[in-house]
């Protein structure tokens, strides 16, 4: 008896999925193709940059990587200088940014009262939203004069006579150069590293921290001995994310790096990066020229480097994030 009562609505429901079956299939197909499209975009980026760079790779071979000339007159192009500039500025930027980002994350998770935490946290995140070109203008009109008048002459004078450092921090005190570019890059990646660190610090189970406080640890000791070891992998992932961001940053660097194609050990000297060279020289390149091909080849190299760095960052950030979500 009760069977028939239930059978009514079930039968009705059965007929409905049939009418929705086509919609379901269509929607699923659209969703899957959208997902596949993302993979296609990645493949297309790699392939299109490689094909574009092919004439250059053919002309210079693998030597393109360590050839340091960039001579449009004689049509000799090499990637050594921009690769050097890209790596030096990005690594230097991380050296400057990581301690500051850690300090901000420490402050936001352990020290700040909740209201301050929300406001300051938002302000730091807004720093990440400021467009790249604005950092370039700010760097060029505010930081460069500051570096030229106060910081660089002072540093050069102070370090004069100290081996290694004397050479490292040398160069014309024009304010532009590798160090200034690294400084601007550092400011730009701080919000990304700080936000990642803050988020992973918050995944540390309160019991661990409370136990450490319970045996008399100070805040610093808790962070150093409990929070950092617990989040080590993700912290490195966050730093790699910052590195990935710094490697491809274009407009800000273009404004302040000085844009000369030479390798120098002087951090105050000018240089270039892959992204800044491509942005500057692209407009002067003829369609189909070897120069354009070399720029695309540089783009291909930059994509490979950033992809590896960002992929490592993802892999490091993933397991702990999953564990944190469970906890």
């Amino acid at each position, binding site marked *: 008896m009760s069977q028939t009562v239930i059978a009514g609505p079930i039968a*009705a429901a059965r007929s409905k*999925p049939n009418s929705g*079956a086509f*919609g*379901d299939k269509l*929607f699923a197909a659209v*969703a*899957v193709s959208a997902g596949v*499209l*993302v993979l296609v975009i*990645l493949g*297309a*980026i790699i392939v*299109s*940059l490689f094909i*574009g760079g092919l004439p250059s790779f053919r002309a210079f071979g693998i030597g393109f990587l360590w050839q340091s000339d960039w001579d449009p007159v004689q049509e000799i192009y090499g990637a050594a200088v921009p690769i050097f500039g890209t790596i030096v500025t990005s690594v230097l930027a991380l050296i400057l940014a990581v301690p500051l*980002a*850690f*300090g901000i994350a420490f*402050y936001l998770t352990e*020290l700040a009262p909740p209201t301050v935490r929300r406001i*300051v946290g938002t302000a*730091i995140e*807004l*720093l990440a*939203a*400021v*467009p*790249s*070109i*604005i950092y370039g*203008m*700010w760097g*060029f*009109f*505010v930081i460069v004069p500051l570096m030229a008048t106060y910081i660089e002459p002072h540093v050069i004078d102070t370090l004069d006579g100290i081996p290694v450092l004397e050479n490292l921090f040398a160069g014309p005190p024009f304010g532009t150069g590798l160090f200034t570019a690294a400084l601007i890059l550092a400011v730009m990646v701080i919000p990304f590293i*700080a936000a990642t660190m803050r988020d992973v610090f918050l995944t540390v189970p309160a019991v661990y921290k409370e136990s450490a406080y319970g045996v008399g640890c*100070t*805040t*610093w*000791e808790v*962070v*150093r001995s409990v929070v950092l*070891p617990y989040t080590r992998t993700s912290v490195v992932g966050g730093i790699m*994310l910052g590195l990935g*961001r710094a490697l*491809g*940053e*274009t407009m800000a660097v273009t404004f302040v790096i000085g844009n000369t194609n030479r390798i120098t050990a002087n951090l105050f000297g000018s240089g270039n990066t892959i*992204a800044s060279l491509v*942005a500057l020289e692209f*407009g002067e390149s003829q369609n189909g020229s070897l120069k354009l091909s070399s*720029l*695309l080849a540089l*783009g291909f190299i*930059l*994509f490979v480097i*950033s992809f590896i760095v*960002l992929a490592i960052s*993802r892999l490091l950030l993933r397991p702990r994030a999953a564990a944190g979500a469970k906890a």
Partner: protein
Amino acid sequence: MSATTIGGGMTAPARDPRVAGLLSRRRQRANLAVKALCIAATVVGLVVLASILFTLIRLGIGGLRLSVFTRMTMPAGDNGGLLNPIVGSLIQTGIGTLIGTPIGIMVGTYLSEYARNSVLGNAVRFVSDVLLSAPSILIGLFIYQVFVNGRGYSGIAGALSLAVIMIPIVVRTTEDMLRLIPTALREAAVALGAPKWKAIVLICYRAALDGIATGVLLAIARVAGETAPLLFTSLGNDNWSIDLTKPMASLPLAIYKYAGSPADDWVQLAWVGAMLITFGVLALNIIARVAIRPRR
């Protein structure tokens, strides 16, 4: 130090009270020093933000006149405005959003509703997350290679490059927001006989609407200030043009061109443009954050 080190920087209390006192003071001092440094680091971050905003207002406000919005870009000294770059930016960002948002939402839907643990789903999620931070200049080169090369620079190419940059941002927020929706809600919809797609569109999207909208707003804010990809796609244009197949002006490109010029009125216009775009982008960010806050 007479105290035994346990490791990881923790020290056992010493028996001698004088040593213990010294040690305790040392630890307190280290703690205070680190706290002070952390506060200093935070202040540095805030000072940078304040300095950027202050610089923009100081150098931009003086040039903010009605003519900026009503006159087109002109040769230096001719009292030009930013009308065509502003309109060009709006058009390219708008079309980029129209292309990028549906794709991004569908990818996010795929990851959350269809491929939670599939190999393809994990690959898509991984690649999307990597593209999220990929250098935007390379997106520009990519669009140049497949779309501009041979056909010429165009506004639609600029919009496409912005769309490619937007997709991963929308994907991330859409997936995150859809995952927050309780499975019971989906089950309830399906139990009532709704096909899966209706459950997703009518139930899940509606429940996740403000989260998805936040993602779209953040994506718009991100691409509105993008300069590098437009260099190779829409090129910029000093004349009035809303033809999508022709080179199109945009605010970031105008700022880039004017900021480096020797003409004072062009530099002034660059600052006005920079101020407009930065405060626009920051306002979008704040709106997006306020919109999502009540949910959490």
